[in-house]
């Protein structure tokens, strides 16, 4: 590790690995070094070194959900919080760029000053770094009205596993100059490249953000309503079922958000109620962060997906895990559940029931060691071959994929 100090400025040598808090790397071995580069060039130097020396690199933005490291190879933790700060903000063009380590809250606050925002709401977004959000690629229920996170990322600066710096995309909303490598990096969870800077598309804050909800005895009963919302002639900004809504006294509820001008929102609510055949309660006091983060903490988190009409079967399958918390984004066909640590056999059977209806299951469970990934739905063989090909194109030395070190 000594040679590391010769390629990075002293300011980038963050801390003694032993000082790194456990919470930052749950279930993992301690790293051999922790670095905190302040510029893309430093990241490039680090990655070139890592590939040459055969040392693994684990990027950490906010620290949450990092992959535990289990193998016995040497590895370095790369903290991206040194790559923080707004770079440009062209409010009139609705574009903003910032270092990958910038806390999302900083971005949101800058946008808010111009009555703009970034319309995605994955769990715990306020605790995440911009690069971490992009690496995870999760959109949250607002994808219903605004599209997926990947469509809001206009450009990225990334460093490949072997230290090549690539600028992907750009600063404009339409751009087809070359293959869309940006899409491969969004959601790649650190397996292809280190993201050092992000260009985001901003949106005007809607004049009215109305929250409607309806309570139900069970999530299954609410699913029927949610599916109706998904076939209504108006498209809400989001629609999500949680199995316990504080505003509804902890009962299950379907929460729908409508965005637009006052007249539009009022009319949309009427159309929706006519179509679904029920009356919503209007509540501006609903805790959006609570809804957004529901079922995102626990020993074991499960993400399941299926086409909306198959979600009933997915919920039935998940029942076997007696989830402690459940959230359903029916338009996106996504279910999130938290549960106690299940046995492999239970997961296997839940997963195959979900796969039988064309769906997929993914497990996040630091305490389950490597088994969480093995128990998740794998890409099809043809997809897997392409995934591996892309990994070696981006990271020929295999230093970015913690399963390997």
């Amino acid at each position, binding site marked *: 590790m000594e040679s590391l100090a010769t390629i990075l400025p002293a300011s980038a040598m963050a801390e003694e690995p032993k000082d790194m808090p456990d919470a930052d790397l749950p279930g993992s071995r301690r790293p051999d070094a922790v670095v905190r580069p302040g510029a893309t060039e430093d990241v490039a130097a680090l990655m070139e070194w890592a590939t040459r020396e055969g040392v693994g690199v684990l990027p950490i933005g906010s620290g949450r959900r990092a992959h535990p490291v289990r193998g016995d190879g040497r590895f370095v933790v790369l903290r991206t919080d040194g790559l923080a700060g707004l770079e440009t903000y*062209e*409010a*009139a*063009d609705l574009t903003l760029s910032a270092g990958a380590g910038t806390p999302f809250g900083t971005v949101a606050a800058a946008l808010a000053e111009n009555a703009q925002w970034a319309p995605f709401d994955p769990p715990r977004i306020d605790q995440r770094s911009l690069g971490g959000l992009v690496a995870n690629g999760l959109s949250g229920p607002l994808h219903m009205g605004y*599209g*997926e996170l*990947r*469509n809001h990322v206009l450009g990225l600066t990334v460093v490949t596993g072997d230290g*090549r*710096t*690539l600028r992907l995309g750009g*600063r*404009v*909303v*339409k*751009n*087809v*100059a*070359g*293959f*869309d*490598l940006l*899409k*491969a990096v*969004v*959601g790649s969870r650190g*397996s*292809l490249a280190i993201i050092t800077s992000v260009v985001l598309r901003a949106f*005007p*804050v809607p*004049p009215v953000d109305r929250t409607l909800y309806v309570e139900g005895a069970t999530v299954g009963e609410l699913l029927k309503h949610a*599916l109706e919302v998904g*076939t*209504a*002639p*108006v498209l809400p900004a989001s629609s999500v079922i949680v199995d316990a809504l504080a505003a509804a006294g902890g009962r299950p509820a379907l929460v729908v958000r409508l965005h637009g*001008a006052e*007249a*539009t929102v009022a009319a949309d609510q009427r*159309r929706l109620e006519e179509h679904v055949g029920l009356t919503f309660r209007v509540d501006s006091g609903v805790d959006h962060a609570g809804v957004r983060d529901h079922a995102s903490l626990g020993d074991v988190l499960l993400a399941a*997906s*299926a086409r*909306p*009409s*198959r979600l009933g079967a997915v919920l039935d399958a998940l029942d076997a895990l007696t989830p402690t918390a459940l959230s359903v984004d029916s338009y996106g*066909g*996504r279910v999130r559940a938290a549960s106690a640590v299940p046995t492999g056999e239970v997961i296997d059977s839940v997963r195959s029931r979900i796969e039988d209806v*064309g769906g*997929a299951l*993914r497990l996040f469970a630091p305490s389950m060691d490597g088994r969480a*990934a093995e128990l998740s739905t794998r*890409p099809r063989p*043809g*997809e897997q071959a*392409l*995934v591996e*090909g*892309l990994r070696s*194109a*981006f990271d020929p030395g295999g230093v970015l994929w913690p399963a390997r070190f």
Partner: protein
Amino acid sequence: MTEPLPAALVRQLRSTVGDDHVITDPNRLLVYESDGLSAYRVRPRAVVLPASTEEVAEVVRVLHAAEIEIVPRGAGTGLSGGALPTPDGVVVGTARMNRVLEIDARDRIARVQPGVVNARLTDATRPHGLYYAPDPSSQSTCTLGGNVAENSGGPHCLKYGVTTRYVTGLTVVLAGGEVVRLGGAGREVADGLDLVGLFVGSEGCFGIATEIEVRLLPLAEGVRTLLGIFDTMEAAGHAVTSIIASGLMPAAVEIVDKATIRAVEASVFAAGYPTDAGAALVIEFDGTEEGLDADADRAEACCLAAGAREVRRARSEEERLGLWKGRKKAFGAMGRIAPDLLVQDATVPRTRLPEVLAKITEIGVRYDLQIANVFHAGDGNLHPNLLFDRADPDQMARVEAASHEIMSLCVDVGGTITGEHGVGVDKRGYMTLVHNEVELDMLRRVRRVFDAEGLFNPGKVIPDEEIDAVAGVGAS
């Protein structure tokens, strides 16, 4: 120059797709010599028209074994030479793969073959109250396969986003004939990478899409269409900036300039735009009926504040089509004032539009070329159309030089060399304006992940590859 295919190979292809669907007769090959960028022409060795994924796979297998290049082709409306044949290659066309395979109104998903024409998909889903959002101006002829390959946009992509936002799954045939399913609604959380997003926009260089799954949207209930008439292009550009910055979310904001207005008004497509106007702006809002008038009022105010001399508002569907006419018929009208038309395509940050348009005018004057602008202004996606006569080599050289200057200009203000038409053969030479050698090398590496030998659409997108394709090409 083009070598005929060996007879045994032709027999093999015929036994796969049927005798009528392997074209080798030079007269019938003529229509496949170019796409919408007609300045480039190359005769392919043959055209094969398979009808199913299995047939595509078998055709690709046979051609791959014989090491013959494959150029995928949809309707051939592409404007960057993406479907331009190679002299040693065979065109694989999707014309017979034109079936809508599934419409699931509950899940708002449609599955189609790649040869389905864009507008036909919406025709098929409209009875369910649904439509397919991306609407290239060529939508009555271009195919979904071509849209996927180019990541096409359209006037209403301002509000709704381009093709990539709507493609949820693909079945693709890769080099060697392997059939691979990528993604699919319901598989969001499967561990892996966004291969669907990567394939969209791959310009026929990764493989052939043989099935496409897309997300549908509910039809908008109401629509309001405005036509703003401006004395200068600059004023129209300012109106665009102020509409977007005001927080309004128009479905479309399109500009036609003075040269275009005059061409349209002098043609059979005359739309009633004033011929002394400097620019016209078509603005459309859609969605819930209530609220649309207020949006239209605000947009009208933005236009007037920016100096519009007049703002018309459609009161009926007929009037709406009338307001759109000058925009929609622009290309047809230009065809009548010059023998050849080069439709350029570039994107700039929209606040830079007024300045960039002024400089493009200046470039036109300097090279003594007529340039007519008609474009997706809300997205900053420019289409400067260069009018010329291919028979005049001096004009050809000036078109080339002016195009290069326009591209450099757009890149210099923070834009890019293509917003929706793709790189194809036409923009390969400009790729170095936006990508360095490391990035170009990465594009090559990623392409090899899908197609190790580079048999799919060689000579497209990436500069400096072995380019037989361009040998003997007319334009450059």
